[in-house]
């Protein structure tokens, strides 16, 4: 067991790094999804915007100024994009969930194509900011420092989001809206404002995840679809609107993806989707989802 652990340490750490990134992505998607029944298929495109922002600013040289600038721009873009998405989905609120999903799918097609017009179809690598671009030794294995930092950021963010959701009145409002939207609006709270806030928050997380993930995964066309699928799987496994579920789901999927690729490369994607199917069959509402099944 110890030998196996030692031999696969790098894969396990990679799994946590992927898991951290997936958590940042999935938690936004999950709250939006669980709360507003908005299946935001543009979430992956927002990640891609963040990643290209990081590329644009860090291409001239990976400095801290450029990295923080990319993060700042990503936050600004995420806020605007979230507000726009909220306004755009509002007229469709009473229509079937498929219509909103299709609207965001259309938006993601447009965003991805505009990005490919600007940046072409090349695959770019993005450097980590100075000081984080080296490697460290972890139990005898050299491992990129930036990925360890990414794991740390993911965990810190998980704690922050958990505290906000469980310990503040804003969090209570969001949880209440996940549980029973009609009741919340009956209490005199404007659901549209909550929705704008939640979508803006979720979109910021997606664009920021794009910047943070840049130095690990680089950026290429089609990356949006890959990350969106992984994030959706995390959300469904974890359960709609559940922070704990998103964290555990992200870590499980990160490990399944990373270890699966290392140990059973030809079966990796089956294991991923097999895990999804298994969870859905055994617990249709996800591991930590609310009891009611969203219709």
């Amino acid at each position, binding site marked *: 067991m110890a030998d196996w652990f030692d031999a696969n340490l790098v894969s396990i750490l990679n799994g946590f790094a992927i898991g951290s990134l997936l958590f940042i992505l999935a938690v936004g998607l999950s709250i939006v999804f669980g709360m507003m029944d908005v299946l935001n298929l543009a979430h992956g495109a927002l990640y891609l915007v963040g990643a290209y922002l990081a590329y644009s600013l860090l291409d001239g040289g990976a400095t801290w100024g450029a990295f923080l600038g990319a993060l700042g721009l990503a936050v600004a873009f995420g806020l605007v994009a979230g507000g726009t998405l909220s306004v755009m989905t509002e007229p469709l609120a009473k229509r079937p969930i498929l219509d909103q999903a299709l*609207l965001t799918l259309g938006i993601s097609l447009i965003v*991805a194509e505009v990005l490919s017009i600007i940046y072409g179809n090349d695959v770019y690598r993005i450097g980590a900011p100075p000081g984080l671009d080296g490697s460290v030794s972890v139990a005898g294995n050299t491992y990129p420092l930036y990925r360890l930092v990414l794991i740390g950021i993911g965990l810190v963010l998980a704690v922050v989001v958990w505290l906000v959701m469980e310990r503040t009145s804003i969090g209570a409002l969001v949880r209440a809206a996940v549980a029973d939207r009609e009741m919340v609006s009956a209490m005199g709270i404007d659901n549209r404002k909550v929705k704008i806030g939640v979508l803006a928050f979720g979109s910021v997380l997606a664009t920021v995840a794009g910047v943070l993930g840049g130095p690990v995964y680089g950026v290429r066309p089609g990356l949006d679809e890959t990350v969106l*699928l992984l994030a959706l799987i995390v959300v469904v496994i974890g359960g709609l609107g559940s922070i704990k579920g998103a964290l555990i789901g992200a870590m499980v999927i990160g490990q399944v993806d990373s270890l699966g690729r290392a140990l059973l490369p030809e079966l990796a994607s089956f294991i991923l989707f097999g895990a999804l199917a298994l969870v859905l069959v055994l617990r249709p509402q996800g591991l930590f989802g609310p009891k009611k099944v969203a219709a």
Partner: protein
Amino acid sequence: MSATAHPTTDVPPSTGSTAVPASPPSSSRRRGLLGALPPAVVLVVLAFVPFFLAEDPTNILTRILVFGLFAVSLDLLVGITGLPSLGHAAYFGVGAYTAALVADHWTPSAPTPVLMAAAAGAVAAVLTGWLAVRSHGVFFLMLTLAIGEITSQLALQLDDVTGGSNGMSVPSVRFGSEPFDADFRIAYTYWYVLVVFVIAFAAMWLIARSPFGLALRGIRDNEGRMRSLGYTPFRYKYVAYVLAGGFAGLAGGLFAQVNRLVSPVDAGFALSAITLLALVLGGAGTLWGPVLGMAVVVIVRDYYGPDLNGHGPLVLGIVFVIAVYVLPRGFAGIAGLLRTPRRRRDRSIVPGEERAA
């Protein structure tokens, strides 16, 4: 994509017995004769297309029919049964690979490969639908998405059989042992596709209008009520899923024989997505609307695509966003608007019906 107010749901709901009303009102029978005229005209025009269209447009039309058939099979699921699938391309892909393998190893002679493709699509739907149909709402979206992804991954990874990412080439279609005459290959291929399309479309049309199809609409509109009337929604949805899978497989088989190259992309999410776009554009639940929607999609992507520098998806995305807002019931919705006044008059015969509707 509204769940109510489809033209064919106007039949008054039967109370109690499971038998769905057999005799339509006489006004609709008279309309039936007139109503048969436009499809007949369209059919005649379609049959003569190779005589007056150049080869390129004929090829495009062939592709429209192939993908249109696929869109109709998805409509059976989304529009009629109310099951919004994001992974329907899986069965298209299964059909395409089956037809490719049959044509390669057994016989490329029509219609064996497409029939085997339809059977394979149905079998795949039997195996996966049992799982998918149990779930509701967004979970159904997710499970079908997963089924689609697994299928295209399978196609990618079983490269001994499927050729992996290079795809596999398919022998050209033939009747009997003779290949098509090279000069008329495009026309013959078109007619072959047209015949299969018409038969399959008629079959799905009949299914949608049969008592079984009405039960599916009932489940779409109010599953709980259908259950209390004594139906077993799961069984109906499962059968609908398998039928849709079979027709998707058929379309996939046609695609393999027409395109002569099958690759994992043909089972992927992109195809499911643009087909949903076709449904939104054309109007879900009408069966003919999605064919028109698919025509727009195929023309933008395959015909104007090269002029757009490979950025056809940009145009499709814009069309997508506009269509969701402007055409809640697609092209069929526009046709419905033109017809509304007459239907109002029909309705007011039954007192209270107008307020209830």
